[in-house]
């Protein structure tokens, strides 16, 4: 075969057109299967669309946009925008009108302090209240005048509270049993403060407790 002359552009395009005719056709069985599947899917989509209450528009011969009513049409978009603006404005007005309540409601962070009630003794239930830290507790003592006397009290019910008998230690000092409920039952009331008797004339100043009696020294003969 003799070498041919180079092809020009027109000949190339003509060959391309001829090549077009050589392409095999779509096999009919494959095409039929694809067509059936295509039409079936179209039916399903149409059923879905009608099932949604006919929300889809696009009919009416205006180009078939297929826009959803209320979402794709211009009046629908405007209506949605108007509703949205109205709702936001109403919320803002309500927030402004009730701004005080909103402010107070948000600051309710008070701590709930539980009151602790302690029973100091089984005799007289007392309510322990917290003393404010600004108040300095002032200690007061009841003056003990004279020699402590041993008084034994039987358990006596006073106002429903039992009184435990006082005791005295071996060295003669009274044991400070914390039974002072403020009643001072059975005790001699203290005498008023007298200047020169150990309280420096200040009736509010507690007297010094008397020293216990010293044992008598044997006299030198």
């Amino acid at each position: 075969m003799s070498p041919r002359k180079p092809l020009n552009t027109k000949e190339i395009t003509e060959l391309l057109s001829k090549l077009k005719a050589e392409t095999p056709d779509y096999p009919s069985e494959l095409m039929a299967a694809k067509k059936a599947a295509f039409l079936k899917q179209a039916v399903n989509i149409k059923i879905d669309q009608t099932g949604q209450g006919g929300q889809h528009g696009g009919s009416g011969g205006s180009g078939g946009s297929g826009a959803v009513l209320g979402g794709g049409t211009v009046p629908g978009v405007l209506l949605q925008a108007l509703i949205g603006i109205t709702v936001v404005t109403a919320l803002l007005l309500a927030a402004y009108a009730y701004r005080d309540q909103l402010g107070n409601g948000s600051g309710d962070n008070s701590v709930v302090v539980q009151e602790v009630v302690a029973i100091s003794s089984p005799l007289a239930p007392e309510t322990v209240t917290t003393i404010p830290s600004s108040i300095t507790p002032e200690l007061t003592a009841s003056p003990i005048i004279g020699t402590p006397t041993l008084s034994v009290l039987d358990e006596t019910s006073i106002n429903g509270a039992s009184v435990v008998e006082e005791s005295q230690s071996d060295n003669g000092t009274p044991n400070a049993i914390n039974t002072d409920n403020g009643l001072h039952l059975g005790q001699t009331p203290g005498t008023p403060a007298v200047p020169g008797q150990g309280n420096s004339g200040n009736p509010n100043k507690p007297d010094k407790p008397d020293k216990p009696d010293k044992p008598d020294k044997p006299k030198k003969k």
Partner: protein
Amino acid sequence: MKDESALLNAVVSLDQDALASVFDEYAPAIFKYLLRLGIGSQEADQITGDVFVRLLEKIKEGKGPQKNLRSYLFQTAYHLVVDQSRERQRITTLDMADTVVQDSQPVSAMAEDKLLLEKLAKIMERELTEEQTNVIVLRFQEDFSLKETAEIVGKNINAVKALQNRGINKLRDAMSRENGGE
């Protein structure tokens, strides 16, 4: 033109007759277009089905074709081909020259023309880029205009012209080499 508009409206309205008519008319053309791009018949069948499925999905979304249904369907096919070629290296199962010889040997074609067509098909597959092949096939085998081709491949008309000219020049040079002209 009026028929095209009426057909589009019927398609968008999911009219069964219109859809069947569109499938009968364009499915074989798309199948052939895919074969001309060097895609195997099995894959071409799959992509052809996908093109029409995509059409229904777009109609459902309200984004169906507005005009020129044929261009729209070829454009969809083109995008599917590009997507697939990006995903994996395409194994060409179709030798177009073999197709020419085995499947349909035109009685009218002369033996010399047959030889030329075989060469041309092989050169297209071997020498042209994917974009050049697409433009050449769309322009000279599917008979789309420059504007339509530009819309399908998503380029402007000048770019399509450049791709077309480079493709034709490559084919011409390669054919000349094969024929021993140079």
